[in-house]
């Protein structure tokens, strides 16, 4: 009888485990690192599509309907697709302002906040650049926020969440040391990117973004702007052009061929060949700073 009771007691946490929905794969990775098997994690966006324009598929509504906690990147990145999904999911636990709505951008400092706001400047984010994920020093901060959030919502597993965080933070500190070393020779160099996507990463390691292939955020490249960039690369001896995997790569390849700069294809989230946070940053570091 006692044994049956024990079995029953052990089986309860499985049924009671929290349902967490992560807007992007990297958030899902962080939740898994903190919660291990104590939470069920669903991820909405994939690494293959533009994080600004995720198609709000109805299947995500079913996902959100069952969630106890929704974790978003924030900073306006999801403005084009999370609101209609939340509106249709009818789940008061995770609407904006509820305990189950966690906006990670509230816990980091955003850079490049525009001084004035006009759509004549393209698709500018009022809150600043939302791609803060690419500063690897933000990652433990985000993990910590998730650790506290999970502990608050699920105090029964608090000690596990804290312990898992400690392991993760220690591991990440090691990685930061490695990346610091690899990136050191590339300090005070210059780069071109397609969109202001990797700005946090470049800023962290002292690489200055001197131009973007898109003339304005959200505007497709024009031939005049492309030629200007080629000239700038030639005169300023800029070494690298960073290209994400959802915009067309032809313009970047053309610029590289004409100017002699090196094009680097980078993933913008965890997935595909870079299926862990470690690999995502390892690849970014290796590709960006080849000496």
């Amino acid at each position, binding site marked *: 009888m006692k044994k049956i009771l024990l079995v029953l007691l052990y089986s309860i946490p499985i049924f009671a485990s929290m349902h967490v929905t992560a807007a992007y794969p990297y958030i899902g990775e962080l939740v898994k690192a903190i919660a291990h098997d104590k939470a069920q994690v669903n991820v909405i966006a994939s690494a293959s*599509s*533009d994080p600004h*324009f995720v*198609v*709000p*598929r*109805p*299947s995500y*509504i*079913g*996902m959100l*309907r*069952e969630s106890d906690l929704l974790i978003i990147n924030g900073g306006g990145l999801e*403005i*084009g*697709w999370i*609101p*209609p*999904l939340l*509106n*249709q*999911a*009818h*789940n*008061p636990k995770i*609407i*904006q*302002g509820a305990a189950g709505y966690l906006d990670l951008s*509230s*816990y*980091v*400092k955003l850079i490049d906040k525009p001084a004035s706001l006009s*759509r004549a400047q*393209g*698709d500018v984010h009022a809150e600043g650049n939302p791609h803060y994920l690419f500063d690897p*020093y*933000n990652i*433990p*901060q985000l993990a*910590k*926020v998730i650790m*506290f*959030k999970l*502990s*608050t919502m699920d*105090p029964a597993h*608090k000690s596990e969440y804290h312990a898992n965080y400690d392991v993760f933070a220690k591991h990440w500190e090691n990685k*930061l040391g490695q990346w*610091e070393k690899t990136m050191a020779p590339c300090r005070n160099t210059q780069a071109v990117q397609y969109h202001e996507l990797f700005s946090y990463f470049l800023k*962290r390691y002292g690489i200055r973004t001197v131009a973007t292939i898109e003339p304005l955020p*959200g*505007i*497709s490249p024009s031939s005049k702007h492309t030629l200007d960039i080629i000239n700038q690369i030639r005169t300023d001896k800029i070494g690298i052009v960073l290209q994400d995997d*959802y*915009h*067309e790569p032809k313009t970047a390849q053309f610029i590289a061929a004409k100017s002699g700069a090196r094009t680097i294809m980078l993933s913008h989230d965890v997935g595909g060949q870079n299926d862990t946070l470690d690999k995502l940053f390892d690849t970014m570091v290796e590709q960006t700073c080849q000496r």
Partner: protein
Amino acid sequence: MMKKSLLWLACTCALFASDTELEQLKKQMAQLQQQLSEMQKHIQTLESAPSVTVSDTGSDEEMLEKMASKSEKPSVTTLLPDIALILNGGYTSRNVTNTQYTNASIPGFVNSGDMEIPFNSKNGFNLNYAEVAMSSTVDPYFDANAIFHIHGDGTLEVEEAFFSTRALDYGLRAKVGKFKSAFGRVNEKHHHAWNFEDQELVNNALFGPDGLGGEGAQLQWVAPTPFYLMAGIELFNGNQKQGFSGKESATTAVSYLKTSTDVGNATLLGGISYAQGNSEVQNLNSTGDIIPDSFTSYGKTKIYGADFTLEYPLEGYGSLIWQNELMYRTKDVATMTQKQAGYYSELLYRIDENWATGIRYDELYKNQNEILSVNDLHRTSVKLEYKPFEFSRFRLQYNQDHSRYIDDQAKTIHELMLNYTLELGAHGAHAF
């Protein structure tokens, strides 16, 4: 900067110094440079520390609060509703005159003179509307929306104005006010979110240009299933333009069931819908003719709908969408029960973030009515779209329209429309 001035200092000193002093100075310089590089290293490590530092005391909840970065005080304007302005207009060219076009009929569905054409009604330039849309959260329990169309001729129309619940449990949400029904696939969408510049023929023929809806109430339920399953019921005041009797109060009832699943990369969305209300059974005179606008008894209008959409994402921003909808209506009138049905099928190809194209075929294939039973009413449309940016769109559309009769004669209408749609301000994102 500092290095340079130090060097300058060292050089000027050296000019006046003896050899031994020079040696000493060199040593000091080396020491200073070492100190400087150590300081630079220190600055680098300080810079790399996380932007927010936290003292490790307090409960988890308090810690979370402490970690939040201090943002500026929210201003009062953040309490204003989100306001968007949408402009739509363009240039239209048809092979019929404006008078012929506005007096056309769709036999059995819309009588001559009853046709309402809110968009692109004239040959030449048309300002279809300036849409003003406002939305906001009211309080912890309600959201509210209001959408107005100010047409080119100065008339103002309340497209929608409603509030909906935020905090109901069990996956429920209620909506009250004036709004568009979620019947079928496209009925709920606003003009600027339509796939083509004009309404699908079957929707236009059965419900009129504003679609099914009006003043009413709605309750929707999302099922706790791992896939998407939604059921809804609605009640509206009867409206003659939508095929019902407008004489009595809330008599139009709508219900639907929608479901969706992803198969690989593709998304499938399907739904069945049903609407029911009163129809007017008009009186006949002694010779058996209908006495216009007279009736003593009510019949039933019933509409059955089914829709199916397949969306397949392509590389980058491209996608392929195949969307279909079928409707069947029975309506009791003076001498018979009308039986009418129609469908549309459209294939949309989004090439990249700037270009899109599409083709649509509309048909009213069943049309048993008491006036003129023609069942070869159909229309073919093609479009090409260019979006310089997320908030502006230009669309060229050609229609070959075999659905209209002019002076009781079938007439093929060719129309070419070039339209612009501009979205300004804080416009909420659209659903799938």
